């Protein structure tokens, strides 16, 4: 089956640097697909090229079997949820959500707005101004304003970063549920690996303008293909060139394993991280159950299973 959205060898040069370098991706219909990477890795530029705000220097963008990379934004059937939400401050919630429908001359605009406002739990707020809404409500108006147009792909540019941390975790679940219920393909840009891992069907990890790996959350976490992917997603110990996750490291008072000396430990609530320095080698972080008694200076043995190692 052909992918809904396909990027072929996409590159973008700015005056001083190459922001995106030869990115090729296939995004299947109905997927929750994330572009994950540190700030400045080019993920937002990729999104902006798909939306039509930037013109690719090289490469092609195909949507639904048609090439769209030279179309203006208003002729592409994709919509964007902006990081700042970009709600029109002079229009009510109703008029914000209706804006796109009016541009397309849709007849039953008001009924559609009502339906989508129900979907994002904003019924009763239609006559409010954006300035009268909470951050979470504004984010949902931004979602509603895009979803009401039934885009082929919804582009989301770090839509959770403006929310406070507590709300952010709750919204993750809601966003995933919403995506499932409306069935629209989501292309989600984030620098937050937890966000990407918890919501995505597929993740493309980007670094320095290029895609390093594409896979499911489990694949990119457990079988990283590059050292960057291994380090960027979760904590990683590097021992003699091999990567081992803290949760795969075991500490014991008797062998087998390498002899080590306990340094510090940090209690993280549900788990505890213990630092141990292998004699004549690196420091290792091990994840242990809270309540374990490892004292600084104590001699321990560090071990792990060979299949938990990653090597490049």
């Amino acid at each position, binding site marked *: 089956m052909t992918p809904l959205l396909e990027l072929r060898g996409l590159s973008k040069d700015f005056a001083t640097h190459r922001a995106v370098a030869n990115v090729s991706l296939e995004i299947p219909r109905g997927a929750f697909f994330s572009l994950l990477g540190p700030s400045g890795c080019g993920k937002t530029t990729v999104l902006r090229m798909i939306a*039509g705000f930037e013109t690719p220097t090289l490469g092609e963008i195909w949507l639904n079997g048609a090439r769209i990379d030279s179309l*203006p*934004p*208003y002729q592409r059937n994709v919509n*964007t949820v*902006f990081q700042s939400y970009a709600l029109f401050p002079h229009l009510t919630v109703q008029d914000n959500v209706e*804006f796109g429908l009016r541009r397309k001359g849709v007849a039953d605009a008001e009924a559609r707005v009502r339906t989508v406002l129900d979907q994002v739990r904003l019924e009763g707020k239609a006559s409010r101004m954006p300035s009268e809404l909470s951050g979470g409500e504004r984010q949902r108006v931004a979602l509603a*304003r895009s979803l009401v*147009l039934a885009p082929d792909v919804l582009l989301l540019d770090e839509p959770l970063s403006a929310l406070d941390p507590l709300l952010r975790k709750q919204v993750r679940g809601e966003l995933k549920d919403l995506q499932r219920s409306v069935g629209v393909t989501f292309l989600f840009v984030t620098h937050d690996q937890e966000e990407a891992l918890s919501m995505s069907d597929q993740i493309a990890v980007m670094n320095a303008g290029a895609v390093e790996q594409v896979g499911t959350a489990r694949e990119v976490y457990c079988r990283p293909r590059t050292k960057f992917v291994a380090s960027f997603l979760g904590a990683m110990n590097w021992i003699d060139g091999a990567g081992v996750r803290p949760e795969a490291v075991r500490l014991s008072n008797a062998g087998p394993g390498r002899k080590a000396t306990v340094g510090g430990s940090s209690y993280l609530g549900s788990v505890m991280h213990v630092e141990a320095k292998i004699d004549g080698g690196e420091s290792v972080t091990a994840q242990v159950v809270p309540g374990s008694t490892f004292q600084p200076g104590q001699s321990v043995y560090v071990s792990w299973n060979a299949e938990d190692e990653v090597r490049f």
Partner: protein
Amino acid sequence: MKLRTAFLAPAAVLTAVTLVAPLGIVAVYSFLTRGAYGGVEFPWTIENYTRLWDPLYGAILWRSVWIAAVSTALCLLLGFPLALFIARSGARKNLYLSLVILPFWTSYLIRTYAWMSILRDTGLVNTILRSVGLIHEPLPLLYNNGAVILGLVYGFLPFMVLPLYATLERLDKSLFEAAADLGARPWDTLLRVTLPLCAPGIRAGAILVFVPCLGTYLTSDLLGGSKTVLIGNLVQDQFTASADWPFGAAASLALMAMATVLLFAARRRGEELL
């Protein structure tokens, strides 16, 4: 608090001495009788105000208002695209802004004289048109309402461009992207997003242009000649040639009152002036 008072004092004193006090004097003069050789005499009278109802002065007042209104509208029409262009020209912004302000380096009087030499019968425009054979008689470009409006628009355009620019500059760029993203073509974005969000700048610019245009006398005197007397010229004339200070005082207060009424009418409910 003390520091605040100290900081405010110089401006407060200056305003009291040069604005409030003279205004008081003008107000008092407007209720007195004309002196034989200028100046004022007793007794008190309201005759200076009743004279303003004369249709002759009504016509002058009306002409002042519509010339100021047309000039303001033209400044907006020319200034909005210019402000939009400057706000979107990235690193060149400061260069373009200084070009907008550049004319202020030359006296307004000299620039108005320059327009006279461009527009008069033997001026630049008529000379060129005649030499290429497009006309045989000079076009009457000077000494009419059109010349006054041209001079006002030329002189006050920067006062429209600067507040418009300041407003446009502050707007979140993603709002325009969002409009395009939601299917709005460039004209739609301009009419439904850019213009409405620019309303505070439009109001500020309109006030900054309209009020001085309403009271202008130099431009109408030099470019309008005797056919285009505005209320500013009427006031000036009372204090000079006609030597009727009380009537001049009454006319200038009437002008102020009218400007104030129009300003409050332009103010949106619940909003500050400017």
